[in-house]
């Protein structure tokens, strides 16, 4: 006896209502690997990381990325990279960056000369 649904599509699937097979299991890696997706909205802008797709290979990954991440709004370009190929830092090593914000010698704001110029001009006038 097949499932009779309010959804005619489901009725047409011909699903056995009596089927007692609740232990249907997907095997490991049946849904393939993941690829990280990078999306470029307009020419000149950077590609941004927007998520992943599951795909069997790079070609399919690009196809799927178009559908999942470029269905709305503007897109000019997409990249995909197999998650395996991305080498990422550990967040635990964040202390590597802890002194970086203080390195003012690398920052335009670390160079203030207005006081020196003002003092010089004043001294000139005093002459």
């Amino acid at each position: 006896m097949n499932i009779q649904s309010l959804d005619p599509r489901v009725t047409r699937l011909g699903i056995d209502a009596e089927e007692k097979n609740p232990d249907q299991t997907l095997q490991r890696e049946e849904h393939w690997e993941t690829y990280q997706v990078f999306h470029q909205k307009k020419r000149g802008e950077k590609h941004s990381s927007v998520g992943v797709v599951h795909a069997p290979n790079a070609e399919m990954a690009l196809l799927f990325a178009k559908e999942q991440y470029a269905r709305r709004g503007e897109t000019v370009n997409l990249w995909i990279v197999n998650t395996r190929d991305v080498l990422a830092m550990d967040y635990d090593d964040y202390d590597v960056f802890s002194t970086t914000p203080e390195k003012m010698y690398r920052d335009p704001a670390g160079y203030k000369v207005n006081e020196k110029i003002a003092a010089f001009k004043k001294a000139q006038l005093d002459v």
Partner: protein
Amino acid sequence: MFNTDTLNALRRLLLAMADDHLIIGHRNSEWTGLGPILEEDIAFSSIAQDKIGHALGLYSILNEQLGEADPDTLAFMRNETDFTSCQLVEFPIGEYDFSLVRHLLFDVAALIRFEDASHSAYDPLAKLARKVKGEIKYHVFHASTFVKQLGQGNEESKARMQSAFNQNMALALGMFESFEGEALLVQQGIYKGEAAIRTAWLGEISAILQEAGLQMPDVDKLEPVYGGRKGFHTEFLQPLLDEMTEVFRIDPAAEW
């Protein structure tokens, strides 16, 4: 600019194209939520939406330029025998092998049609074609990628692909059924005609099947399944239309 006979033939062409796209878009929408993997479910739904969009574009030309009823009326209120879609598009979705193979066979033809139409002497069709052919290019890329990969997948997928092509080639050839006044349209540069489209299509499909490691059925031995363009359909179209129009017909005059 075009005489009455030509315009009538043009109406037949546009209606056949519109009906094809509506019915195949409708069939493909049946997979939404039921696809073989989430990412492909999403992809196939976009393709179905595009097809419905193309149908709407074609029905709109019929309505706005050629004096026919509005698109909703054309799609939801005509009788089964008024539809001139080919029989290929009305078959139920079956399993994914059938739907993918139908998708390839139909979309390669659609791309050829729309690329040709983008040079049409009939300006509204040329405009629409130029706008949408990029979408169809993607549809063909999707279909051919799947067919090639499944054709070279494992024993089961190869067998399923081959079987689906063998069983449906005659049905697909029915897309190129001639119709009254076709020659006028060719003469006037409105489109290149069914025979030319069919020839180009055969070349494309052969090439894809070869890349997929599949055998191209011998089309000379096949009897194309005609009838659709004259309003003769399989037992599948009436139930499809009944379902599609069920809510609309509760009150066609109402605003939904």
